[in-house]
C-alpha cells in the first residue's frame, strides 16, 4: 500500500470513529439541553437545538414531588445494602477459592458461581416473587431486592475478589503465621489491607449494577418501595410526558454511576471487562 493510500485509509477509519463519537454523545447533549428547557419549549412542534430560555429550576421542581426524592433514597438503600452483602459473601468465597482451591471445591465450582451471573432473569423472578410473598417482609420491600440482586452481584464479587487474592503473595501470610499470628488475624492484618483497593473497585462495580437495575425492580416492587429506575419511565402529566423534568431527574440519577465509572476506568480495561462486566 502506498503512503498516500495508507494516509487515506487511516483518515477514513478515524472519521468513522469520530462519527461514532458524535452518535454516542448526541443523546447526552440532547438530554442536558432538554433538562434546561421550559415545559412549553420541549413540546414545540419544531424542537430547538439550544434552549431559548435556560430553566435551571427544573432540577429543583423535580423534587417538588417528594416521591421522586424517596425513589433515589430507596435506590440508594438497596444498592448499598446489596453491595455490602455481595462484598461480604464474595470476599469470603473469593479468599477460599484463591487460597484453598482444592478444599473449596476447585475450579469447576468457581466457574459455576460465575455462571450464575449470566443467568436469565426470566427463570428466576417468578418463583422468587412467590417466595418473597410468603416471607414476613413481603415482595414490595428493600430486603427482597437486596437479596435478589445477589444473583448477579455476588458471583461478580466472588470472582473478582478471587483474582485479587491470587495476586497477593501467599508468602506474606506465611510470614505472619511464623510471627505467631492466627489465620484470622493474618487475614485481617496482612491480606485484607493489600486487597483493599481492589475491594473498593469491586464495591463500586456492584453498586453501579444494583443502582441501575430495572427488570427485577419493575416486577417486584412498586408501591411501598420504588427505585428511581421504575419512576423515570412514569414522568407523565395526563397524557403528556414531562420531558424536561424527566431528563433533569435522569441526569441527577445517572451522575453517581458515571462518576464511579470514570474512577474505575483503569480496572475496566485491565482485563476485568472480559464479559464479566455486564449485568
Amino acid at each position, binding site marked *: 500500500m502506498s503512503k498516500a493510500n495508507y494516509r487515506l485509509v487511516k483518515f477514513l*477509519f*478515524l472519521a468513522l*470513529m469520530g462519527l*461514532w*463519537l458524535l*452518535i*454516542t454523545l448526541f*443523546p447526552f447533549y*440532547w*438530554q442536558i439541553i432538554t433538562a434546561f428547557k421550559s415545559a412549553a419549549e420541549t*413540546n*414545540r*412542534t*419544531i*424542537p430547538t437545538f439550544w434552549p431559548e430560555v435556560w430553566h435551571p429550576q427544573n432540577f429543583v421542581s423535580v423534587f417538588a414531588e417528594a416521591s421522586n426524592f424517596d425513589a433515589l433514597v430507596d435506590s440508594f438503600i438497596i444498592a448499598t445494602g446489596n453491595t455490602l452483602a455481595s462484598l461480604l459473601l464474595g470476599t469470603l*468465597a473469593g*479468599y*477460599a477459592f484463591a487460597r*484453598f482451591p482444592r*478444599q*473449596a*471445591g476447585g475450579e469447576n*465450582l468457581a466457574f459455576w*458461581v460465575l*455462571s450464575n451471573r*449470566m443467568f436469565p432473569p*426470566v427463570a428466576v423472578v*417468578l418463583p*422468587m416473587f*412467590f417466595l418473597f410473598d410468603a416471607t414476613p417482609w413481603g415482595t414490595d420491600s428493600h430486603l427482597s431486592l437486596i437479596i435478589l440482586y*445477589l*444473583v448477579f452481584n455476588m458471583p461478580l464479587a*466472588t470472582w473478582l475478589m478471587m483474582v485479587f487474592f491470587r495476586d497477593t503473595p501467599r508468602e506474606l501470610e*506465611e510470614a505472619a*503465621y511464623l510471627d505467631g499470628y492466627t489465620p484470622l488475624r493474618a487475614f485481617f492484618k496482612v491480606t485484607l489491607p493489600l486487597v483493599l483497593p481492589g475491594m473498593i473497585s469491586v464495591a463500586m462495580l456492584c453498586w*453501579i449494577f444494583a*443502582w*441501575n437495575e*430495572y*427488570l427485577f425492580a419493575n416486577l417486584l416492587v412498586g408501591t411501598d418501595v420504588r427505585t428511581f*429506575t421504575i419512576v*423515570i*419511565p412514569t414522568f407523565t402529566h395526563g397524557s403528556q410526558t414531562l*420531558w424536561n423534568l*424527566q431528563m433533569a431527574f*435522569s441526569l441527577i*440519577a*445517572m451522575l453517581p*454511576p*458515571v462518576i464511579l465509572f*470514570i474512577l474505575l*476506568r483503569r480496572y*475496566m*480495561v*485491565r482485563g476485568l*471487562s*472480559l*464479559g464479566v*462486566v*455486564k449485568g
Partner: protein
Amino acid sequence: MVDGTAPGDLAGEPAAAERPRLDRADPATYPEWFRNKKPRANLIVARWVPIALVGLPVLVLFCIVVYPTVWMFYHALHDTNMMRLFQGNWNFIGLENFATVLESARFGDSIVHLGIYLTFGACLQVILGSILALILYELVKSNFLRVVFLVAMVLPMMLPPSIVGVLWKFLLTPSNGAINQALLNLGLIDQHIEWFNAGLSLWTIIIADVWNWTALPLLIVYSGRVSLPPAVYEAARVDGAGAWTTLRRITLPMLKEVIAIAFIVRFMDAFKFVDLVFIMTSGGPAQSSELPAYIAFQRGIREFAIGEAAAYAILIFAVSAVLIILFLKYLKKVLKAQGFA
C-alpha cells in the same frame, strides 16, 4: 495454581543448588515415618473453614438461582395458572405447555424478531465494537486522547436501561423528536419517520440497543488488544510487515478468542434482553416488537399463565446454558493466556 508451599521453599531458593540431589521417585529416599504418613491437605486452618467460606455463598445461590430453576422446571410440566397456584391444585400435563408455546404464532414471530435482533443488534455491535476498539488502539497515539475517547464511547453502557429507554423514546418521538428534526434539517428525509409503528418498532429498539451496548464488545476487544505482547509487534516490524499484514496476520488471530467471547456475551444477553422492550414499546404495537423473554414475563406476570411462562423460561434457560458453557470454555482459555487463572 500451586496449592500449598513445601517447607523447602520458605528457606529461599539459593539453598536449592547446594542440596544433594535426591531421587524423589525412589521410595527408599524417604524415611519410614514419611512413607507411612497419610497424605493430608496442606492447610493452616481447620478443614471445615474453606468449606464454610464457600458454602455460605453457594447456599445463597441455591436459594435464589437453583431453587427457582427447579420450580420453573416443575411448573413447566403442570397446568399451573395464578388461581390454581394459590389454591395449591395443579395437575401434571407432561409436555403440553411446551407444545402450546412452540405451536403458537406469537412464539414463532418472536423467534423471527430475535433473529433480526441477533443479526443487526448483537452481531453488528460486536463487529462495530471490534473495529472501533482497534481504530482507537492502533491509530490514536496520544495516551490522554485514548482515555478520553474510550470513556466517551463506553459512557452509554453505564446508564440504567430505564434512562436509555426514555432517552431514545424522546429522541425518536415522531412528531417533534430530535432525530427526525435533525434528519429533516440535513435533507435526508422529507417527512417524519414513524419510529414506533408496527414496521419499525423492533428496529427502534435495536437502534437504542446498539447505542447502549456497542461499548461492551469495544471494551472487551480493547482490553484484549492492550494485553497482547508488544514483542510480537516489534518482531513483525523488524521483518518489514506493513500495518495491514500485521492486523490480518497477528492481531486478529491473537484476538480470536476475545472476539468469540464478545460474541457469546452479546448472544447471551440477546436471549434475556427485555428491559428496553418494556420501556420503549411494551412489545407493541400489535406484538410487533416482542422477544421471547418479554413474552415469558408477559404470560407469567400479566396474563397469569404460569405453566406456559415456565415453558418459555425453560427454553430460554436451555439456550442460555449452552451459551454459558461455551462462554466459560473461552473464558478459561483467555484467562490462562492472560495469566489470571
